[in-house]
């Protein structure tokens, strides 16, 4: 990339990221995704300031109030403000996204790097293990993990993190395999760099693009999977205002209080859509073949 900039004789010193953002900006859908993600993050941070009511404590006397000025998304079966719960739910979703993807990212990248860099038997063992994990449908594997650990939001995050390890492991491994063949790696080896130095200084930075794309896309699915677990009663426990569990709780009242089912569903949908659009945009923007 830098070489290219030099070759073009561009006066402006544009780094990799500025370049990526420039390309990202051209795609309206990815900007829309980015906007959603920014709104989500903003909501997550400022939920306590934005929420008009307490998300946990409701008044039973006010249950199933229709949307009004006071309760713009109505109230749920416990008389809690749906809007406030959705705002706080954004916090939980961001938390789920960061923690579970963090787990998948760290463990998956470690496995992928080790397997790609060392190759041979290590590669075979690690990759067959990943294959085994891939053989299970993700939600089923997550269910099994939560059943073992016990139902709670933390355990749901761990489970979702674990089931997403294989994706990262595979993607990182394939990038490592191609990066490894470059001459600068050979150079690094010849000047006596340790494996650790080579991996952290030279290989990982060059694998960043696919990892970033994968992370963004995985946040979307992770939120969806965690919401699924909560919906089944295995994730967030009451009274936590997690969108999936809000959906599950309100499902029984679909006729009396459709708003209490609709809004959490919409929130999940928009959030996942946002991350997916952004992820797709990033993939295009980071694809070296699409360089101008």
């Amino acid at each position, binding site marked *: 990339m830098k070489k290219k900039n030099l070759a073009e004789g561009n006066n402006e010193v544009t780094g990799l990221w500025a370049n990526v953002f420039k390309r990202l900006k051209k795609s309206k859908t990815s900007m829309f995704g980015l906007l959603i993600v920014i709104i989500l993050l903003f909501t997550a941070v400022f939920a306590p300031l934005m929420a008009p009511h307490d998300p*946990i*404590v*409701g008044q*039973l*006397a006010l*249950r199933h109030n229709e949307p009004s000025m006071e309760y713009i998304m109505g109230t749920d*079966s*416990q*008389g809690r403000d749906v809007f406030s719960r959705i705002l706080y739910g954004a916090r939980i979703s961001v938390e789920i996204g960061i923690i579970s993807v963090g787990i998948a990212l760290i463990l998956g990248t470690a496995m992928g790097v080790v397997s790609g860099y060392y190759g041979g038997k290590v590669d075979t063992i690690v990759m067959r293990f990943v294959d085994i994990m891939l053989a299970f449908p993700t939600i089923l594997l997550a269910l099994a993990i939560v059943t073992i650990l016990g139902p709670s939001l933390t355990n749901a995050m761990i489970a979702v993190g674990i089931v997403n390890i294989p994706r990262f492991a595979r993607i990182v491994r394939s990038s490592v395999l191609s990066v490894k063949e470059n001459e600068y790696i050979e150079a690094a080896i010849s000047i006596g760099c340790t494996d650790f130095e080579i991996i952290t200084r030279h290989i990982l930075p060059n694998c960043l693009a696919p990892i970033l794309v994968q992370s963004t896309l995985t946040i979307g699915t992770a939120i969806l999977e965690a919401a699924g677990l909560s919906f089944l*009663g295995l994730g967030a*426990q*009451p*009274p936590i205002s997690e969108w999936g569990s809000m959906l599950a*709780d309100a*499902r*029984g*009242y*679909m*006729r*009396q209080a459709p708003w209490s089912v609709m809004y959490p569903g919409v929130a999940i949908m928009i959030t996942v859509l946002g991350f997916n659009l952004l992820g797709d945009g990033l993939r295009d923007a980071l694809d070296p073949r699409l360089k101008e």
Partner: protein
Amino acid sequence: MKNKYLVLVLVLALLATFAFTGCASKETEVTEPEVTEPVATEPEVPAEKVLIFARSGDSVSLDPSNATDGESFYVARSVLDTLVDYEVDNTNIIPALATSWGTINEEGTIWEFKLREGVKFHDGTDFNAEAVKFNFERWMFEDNAYRYPGENFEYWGYMFGGYPGIVKEVRVVDDYTVQIELFTPSAPFLSNLAMPSFAIMSPAAFEQYGADIFKNPVGTGPFQFVEWIKDDKIVLEKNENYWGEGPLLDKLIFRTIPDNSARLLELQAGTIDMMIGLSPDDAQIVADDPNLDLYLRPSMNVGYLAMNELKAPFDDVRVRQALNYAVDKQSIIDAFYAGLAEPAKNPLPPSLWGYNDNVEAYEYNPEKAKELLAEAGFPDGFETTLWAMPVARPYMPQPKEIATALQQQFAAVGVQAEIVTMDWATYLEKGQNGEHDTYLLGWTGDNGDPDNFIYVLLDQDNANIGSAGNVAFYKNQEVHDLLIAAQIESDQEKRAELYEKAQLIIHNDAPWVPLVHSTPPIAARTAVKNYVPHPTGGESTFWQVDIEN
């Protein structure tokens, strides 16, 4: 016009069948004049009458002597018979497998039962005095050879105070006479025998199925067992040789549909015929639907929150009272029972004799609750767990919602409760093991006797880890003495007095937060006829239920 075509089609179809059967046997015997006759009889062949009854949880066991939950009893009631039974809409005793009975000694400790003759079990073996003795001894003696691993016979223990408890011996006098001798006289004895847990199973079936008897019940009831697909359905079919009236149905299917609203949707769609566990919120929908009938089961239950006295801080009476003050029962009833319930202050429902109306309920008073907690050394409250059952119960149609509401009310006085839930069978088992801190449960009376509530749910005899009916593990010698005295006493007025005294002590010791006495709503398609909801909740009247196709 349409009818003409129908007849024509039927005639052609019949001709075809005749032709084929004719071909198979003797061609020469194919004659034409008979053609019109079978057409006339065709519509008279009745379609199979199938009733599908849906509930929220599956049976735990089909051997009711080893079950404590209503879901198990619904099915057992139709497959198995007890020695005596209840009338269709109350708990008065009527003959069933026993035709007459009485005590034959002065102390009233020896009961003699004359048994119904000519009754056969579904496997074709005879019902007789030996079969009765066989079943009783299986329940009574812990070293009985037909007691399989894991079988506890909780109800026998609850009702008769242990193994063998108050029953000394069961004697066969002749083929159709059996004597049961007790150690002490027992007023509720006969009522107890009508409970589904003491139903008679075929001794031959134990030889055939062994430990699998719990999923292969063989009795004398109006329906016989066909198959059980776990968490899906239990299929029963008509017992052609039933000794009593009926049954009118050819098949009775119990389906498990966990979600209340999904169950109602299926009922409206006509894929099921009846449902229990209707959310009170939906009762109005059913009442307004011309295709559905709403039934209200007479209230004879209690829903409660038990506090485990084996665990701190619930060993402190001030903490238990504090939680009683912290709960706003009326708001819970308004929200989750649509008014089909009344707040509870005693373990007994007010419809039962012996109810102590002089007990003054703990009012909703969070301030008082905080004071008591501070006195007990918890000025900032404490953390605990609140166990909630996973299935809708008649006394608690939305346990998770109610748990969430309680959680909020407790939080208001500083008690942070984490809601814990698991599958139904495990929930009951862990409760009996005393693994909980606070535990939501309830009780539907089985026999219309106060003993069945207070002794089973709050006596120290039933606070044994592993088989506890008393999940608060409440132990009070004074209450125990009163309850035992009430069992021996035969005069109902004196018994009522003893129960009233016991309720007052229990109130002060506060082992529970008694929550509600509900009137459970039930919905059925209008095609379902003759259904009578029994106060005990053990659907025992399917023999008389009919369905119009």
